[in-house]
């Protein structure tokens, strides 16, 4: 299920072997190499729109004397974090000050891995929200597995820098949930880009957005086509997976034995990419019953679901999630906007976590994404009030390492372990306080956001001259 973990099938695993921990730029090349090295057809097509993101050269950074939540379950007091060559070089006490570079005094400050949001529509539903920018939901057929969310991303969405100021360094952009198969999701680094390729997380596997429940049946039932019921939804999934299995077999047969090249089908190609383990399923699904059914379908067709999204009832089936190695991405307390979101408990994340399933916070919101630390804090407290012993050093994983797992990038980011990408947030205080803010945000060791230095606060094209022809969209002090 995960690109960089043992369970991965196909070329991404090789990619890790070749490139893991090396310079990002080689990861791209790696995709090409692996196409040859892999022993099956290339359904994921990682090379079609390859990442062009290359982090700037950066001097070393020493964050000194801070409280450090590593994302691996540790809380280190009065400790240092050294970033070098875009990677985490060392975490410990009294580290040597690098000759050249930036020293960040960490007294009173907390350090965490960069926040990762597995569920965002930034760029696909940008601000301002107007008719012509609603590019997130291809609501024309219940199966649009052939569309790719990255092809809708407006890189100049002013919501990206707002999320950065909230400490978000990586985010997955998903198609909407109108369709049973919404299309491919893409994982981005939260960096300014002229093209979406400039933002693509090098080597990250693609996601496939699927949706259970009310949305597909409402959208297509209203049009008088299948599905108009939940059972119609399930028939739609099974028909598609059946076709995808046949497609995959046809191509594998061609790959091994030659003969006439089968006709290429972009929709089935994406699904076949799931079946061979290269593409991760991200499944919008609220109800416990539906999650159980989706896991059975996955078993039937021999694929792995990475993560149930929204998962308001994940707590009801937390043991099943653990058994099936499926993550759940949840809100802290949203509920009631529809029937499948009615059975909310604030302890959802904590219960899933305590059942040893992989639990995480997610936003699905341009506002929520700016406050994922607060949302995690609420979920942590709800867990404590439920009687669980959950501390910040553990809960921080819900916004860092667990979403990294869900996205298949946990070998390269999501914790402060040596050799990982230097995606790091320096908080003004305990990140689980409403009063704390992300003071500095590093992505691959580069200072991408500095609250005290307006020169290190990115602005999108949209913001220039928009409210004041000569000045900023927001004058001094108005930044985020």
């Amino acid at each position, binding site marked *: 299920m995960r690109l960089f973990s043992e369970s991965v099938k196909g070329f991404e695993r090789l990619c890790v072997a070749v490139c893991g921990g090396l310079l990002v730029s080689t990861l791209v090349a790696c995709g090409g190499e692996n196409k040859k090295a892999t022993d099956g057809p290339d359904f994921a097509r990682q090379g079609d729109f390859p990442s062009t993101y290359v982090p700037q050269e950066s001097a070393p950074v020493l964050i000194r004397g801070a409280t450090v939540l590593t994302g691996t379950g540790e809380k280190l007091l009065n400790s240092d974090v050294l970033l070098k060559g875009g990677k985490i070089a060392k975490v410990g006490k009294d580290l040597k000050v690098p000759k050249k570079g930036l020293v960040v005094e960490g007294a009173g400050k907390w350090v965490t891995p960069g926040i990762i949001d597995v569920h965002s529509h930034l760029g696909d539903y940008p*601000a*301002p*929200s*107007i008719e012509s920018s609603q590019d997130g939901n291809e609501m024309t057929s219940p199966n649009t597995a052939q569309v790719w969310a990255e092809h809708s991303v407006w890189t100049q969405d*002013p*919501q990206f820098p*707002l999320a950065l100021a909230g400490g978000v360094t990586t985010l997955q952009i998903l198609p909407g949930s109108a369709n049973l198969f919404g299309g491919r999701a893409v994982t981005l680094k939260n960096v300014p880009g002229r093209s979406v390729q400039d933002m693509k997380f090098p080597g990250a596997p693609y996601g496939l957005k699927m949706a259970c429940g*009310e949305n597909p049946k409402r959208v297509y039932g209203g049009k008088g086509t299948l599905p108009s019921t939940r059972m119609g939804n399930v028939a739609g999934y099974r028909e598609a997976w059946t076709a995808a299995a046949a497609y995959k077999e046809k191509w594998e047969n061609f790959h091994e034995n030659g003969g006439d090249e089968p006709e290429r089908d972009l929709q089935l190609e994406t699904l076949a990419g799931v079946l061979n383990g290269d593409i991760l399923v991200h499944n919008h699904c609220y109800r416990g019953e539906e999650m159980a059914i989706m896991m059975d379908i996955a078993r039937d067709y021999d694929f792995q679901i990475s993560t149930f999204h929204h998962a308001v009832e994940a*707590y*009801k*089936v*937390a*043991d099943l999630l653990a058994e099936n190695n499926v993550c759940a991405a949840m809100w802290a*307390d*949203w*509920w*009631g*906007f*529809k*029937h499948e979101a*009615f*059975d*909310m*408990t*604030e*302890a959802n994340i904590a*219960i899933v976590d*305590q*059942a040893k399933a992989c639990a995480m916070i997610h936003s699905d*919101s*341009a*506002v*929520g994404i*700016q*406050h994922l630390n*607060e949302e995690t*804090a*609420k979920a*942590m*407290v*709800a867990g404590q*009030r*439920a*009687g669980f012993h959950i501390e910040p050093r553990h809960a921080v994983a819900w916004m860092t390492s667990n979403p990294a797992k869900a996205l298949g990038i946990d070998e390269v980011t999501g914790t402060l372990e040596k050799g990982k990408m230097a995606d790091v947030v320096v908080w003004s205080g305990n990140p*689980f*306080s*409403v*009063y*704390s*803010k992300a003071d500095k945000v590093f992505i691959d060791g580069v200072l991408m956001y500095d609250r005290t230095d307006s020169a290190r606060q990115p602005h999108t094209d949209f*913001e220039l001259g*928009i*409210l004041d022809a000569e000045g900023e*969209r*927001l004058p001094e*002090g*108005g930044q*985020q």
Partner: protein
Amino acid sequence: MRISMNVKTKLKVSLFSLACLVGTASAETILIKDAQIVTLGAQGTLDSGDLLVRDGQIAQIAEDLGDVPADLVIDGRGKVVTPGLIAPSSELGLTEIGAAASTNDGAIEEQSVGAGFDPVVAFNPRSTLIPFNRAGGLTRAVVLPYSNEKVFAGQGFAIKLTGDFDSVTKPNLVQRAYFGEYGAELAGGSRAMAYAQIANALAQAKEYSENRDQVRRGEWRELDYSVEDLESLQSLLRGEQPLMINADRASDILQLLALANKYQLKLVLVGAAEGWMVADQLAKARVPVVVDVLGNTPDAFEKLGARMDNAALLHDAGVTVAISGPGYAGSHNSYLSRQAAGNAVAYGLPFEEGVRAITANVAQTFGMDAGVLAPGNAAELVLWSGDPLEITSFAELVMIDGKPQSLVNRSTRLRDRYLSPKAGTEHGYKK
């Protein structure tokens, strides 16, 4: 577990068991000892103080009430008492599930009535939203209709979150209307038309009131609005009822100020994303503003100037700021006004003003007798586990009219049923 109380015996109760108080005969006197008390009134904030509740009212607040006899004594050390939270904008009791039409009573379609729509009879005090929001510290709310067709949505009313059948405290509290982009959409495509419709309705309401008898006898020119609508606008014109109207763009706000001035309306402005740009004018006009603090994205062209420190800037200019729950979370999470206020404080609003914005300022804006802790006031308060604006704090005691309220709700019930989910049928028998 329940505690039976001997009214003659002083009982010290740990906070753990506060939930158990509910449903017992309510104590006549309750003493909260050694808590920080944010009164928002003449007594300011007591770093450590005692608060005595007698017969549903606050009897005394002082640094040390000594050994004053009380039926129930609550140890408030490390805790904070504030007035109960008041939601300035909600649909509590008018909605159960957003996408379930049969559970929604907040708006009407294809009806002639607009301003005269009064949903108060549809209010359901047994809605699941009420105990949930109450557990979050919300004790009162303004409940509003909304509109999909007309610039006037109708009458809002005020409630207490007791869940009692008689918990509407004031019907016909406000008139709800829309300006800005949404108003324009409702009015046929232009702000100018939304403005004209509002102005026209007010002018005709005035005309109606001056010629009521002729209009009713059919001896007057035909007016564009039903008698019901025109009647409902009278209290606006008399300045008795505020017009609660949304606008975000600075220029829209100024247009509303001019309109209000012309008709001598009492305005309550909702949204005001660019309010900071015209804060002085708002202050001068004494127009209170309901702010969605977390709504800092420029997600509409009318909100290009949206920013996190809007509440602080408005307050600095002398505007009365009320803070609502985050717009994206909706009525179901109205109590999250507390998180929003915490963020406002993180972005420059003084702490006490943050608390005020979710309590006293809301009460003041809507003329409610609440929001301040003072002797003689109804005991409507919350005891928080810590800093009341901190995200990790929670309500340990919610009191309305001196009665500790239940903090149990569907969320806690479901939690307790599924604390450790496992296979089998037993969960179905867990209550």
